[in-house]
């Protein structure tokens, strides 16, 4: 690792002040560290300063305004096991449990999970060009090995996927990220607005400002109906999603009355498309609606060669998930 300075913050306000004091923008918050330290060992990230936020008092899950408020430092394993999450947001518990290993889930935090970087092979290979790691150098994933890459939301500059399972469920659940800004102001950002598509600046992945600290994630009251997280991966455990879907579906008298869906493995951010939900709501719960939803999701999907299979795989995964969720009601 490159040398860096280290300071432990004793309050969120002190943390953002400490980050602000290193004006060059080369400072990072560190909490669980499971992604950041990996990247620092490889010198993909080389911050000049680390501000340790791991001991801040931000590790509670509490009822809030009909939903829940999750401290940014709640470990992934604790969040998955929390009684409120298990009872009301089972898709989130399932998404968390499908990610990483138990050791990593014990360390990785809720805020850090949202901000983890892509696992694109070329992003990790410091000998290769990568517009995300070294802006302007190019993208070897296009025309290269791109089996794990995105089919939606890409640009000519970057086709990397966002790797989180947790964030996919949170997108379907309409999560809101609460931050503390360096000036001391708080900000609420819908998860949909936290992430940015790559465009011509794939190195800018979120709408967070330099030094802005995620303190909480809020989930509104859970959606009606049954919930599910279905993940397809290359081995049975401890692997990133090839494709995944988080869904909550309600059926009344055979008709779909409510639908919320988000998708992983497809795009540079946890993906949601209102047209998918519109294709389902008000329709009889059956194959015609499920296929229409898949058509809406994948209308603009474009493979790069090795990842072409993701498009039919996502179609089948979505239809199977919708069948499972509506089986008893059909």
């Amino acid at each position, binding site marked *: 690792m490159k040398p860096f300075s280290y300071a432990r913050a004793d309050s969120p306000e002190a943390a953002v002040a400490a980050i602000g004091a290193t004006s060059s923008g080369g400072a990072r918050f560190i909490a669980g560290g499971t992604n950041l330290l990996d990247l620092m060992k490889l010198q993909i990230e080389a911050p000049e300063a680390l501000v340790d936020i791991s001991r801040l008092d931000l590790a509670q899950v509490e009822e809030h305004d009909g939903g829940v408020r999750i401290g940014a430092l709640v470990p992934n394993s604790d969040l998955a*096991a929390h009684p409120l999450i298990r009872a009301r947001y*089972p898709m989130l518990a399932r998404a968390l449990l499908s990610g990483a290993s138990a050791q990593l889930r*014990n360390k990785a935090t809720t805020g850090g999970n949202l901000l983890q970087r892509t696992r694109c092979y070329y992003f990790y290979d410091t000998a290769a060009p990568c517009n995300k790691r070294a802006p302007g150098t190019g993208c070897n994933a296009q025309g290269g090995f791109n089996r794990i890459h995105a089919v939606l939301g890409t640009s000519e500059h970057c086709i990397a996927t966002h790797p989180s399972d947790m964030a996919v469920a949170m997108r379907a659940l309409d999560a809101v990220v609460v931050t503390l800004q360096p000036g001391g102001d708080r900000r609420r950002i819908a998860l949909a607005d936290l992430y940015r598509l790559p465009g011509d600046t794939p190195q800018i992945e979120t709408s967070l400002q330099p030094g802005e600290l995620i303190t909480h994630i809020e989930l509104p009251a859970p959606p009606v109906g049954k919930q599910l997280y279905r993940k397809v991966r290359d081995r049975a455990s401890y692997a990133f999603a090839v494709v995944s879907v988080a869904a909550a579906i309600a059926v009344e008298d055979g008709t779909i009355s409510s639908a919320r869906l988000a998708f992983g493995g497809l795009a540079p951010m946890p993906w949601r498309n209102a047209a998918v939900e519109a294709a389902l709501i008000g329709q009889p719960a059956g194959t015609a609606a499920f296929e229409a939803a898949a058509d809406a999701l994948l209308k603009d999907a474009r493979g790069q060669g090795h990842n072409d299979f993701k498009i039919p795989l996502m179609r089948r995964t979505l239809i199977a998930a919708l069948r499972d969720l509506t089986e008893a009601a059909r």
Partner: protein
Amino acid sequence: MQFIINGAAYDADPDIRTSLLDLLRDHLGLTGTKKGCDHGQCGACTVLVGGRRINACLTLAVMHDGDTITTIEGLAEGDALHPMQAAFVKHDGFQCGYCTPGQIMSAVGMLDEVRAGMPSHVSASLDTIELSEDEISERMSGNLCRCSAYPNIVDAIAEVAGLAPADREVAGA
């Protein structure tokens, strides 16, 4: 920095970049904890911090100043092996042995998670957790064994967990 490791206090002043794993091995002489991949993928470096299993390679020593840590050296009481160690010997739960300290520490931490009622990816219900061979395999997936001693590792853990042999045959068939 000070650490409480296996019940004893250790002082150290390593470079700020030192991982908890390198602190244990290179600064404190506790070489039972192994370095495999050094990137959190293999689990050979698994230790308990505050009773929870983590990858010692993916955390900085300085972030654990004052913490209570248990390594493989802290399990046995004198010459009396910890039940998990004894079960690994009995069931031949290793071949080369390099991953074994991590496997054992992970298994000890894992059974505490099961006792606390924490669900896993393969739990049919998020509320009622029933340990099985499938549960053990899923919960131990962060520990790789290149010799592929997995069946015997699962047997060793299953015995310590008190799984009836019949349950194990059904799940492993």
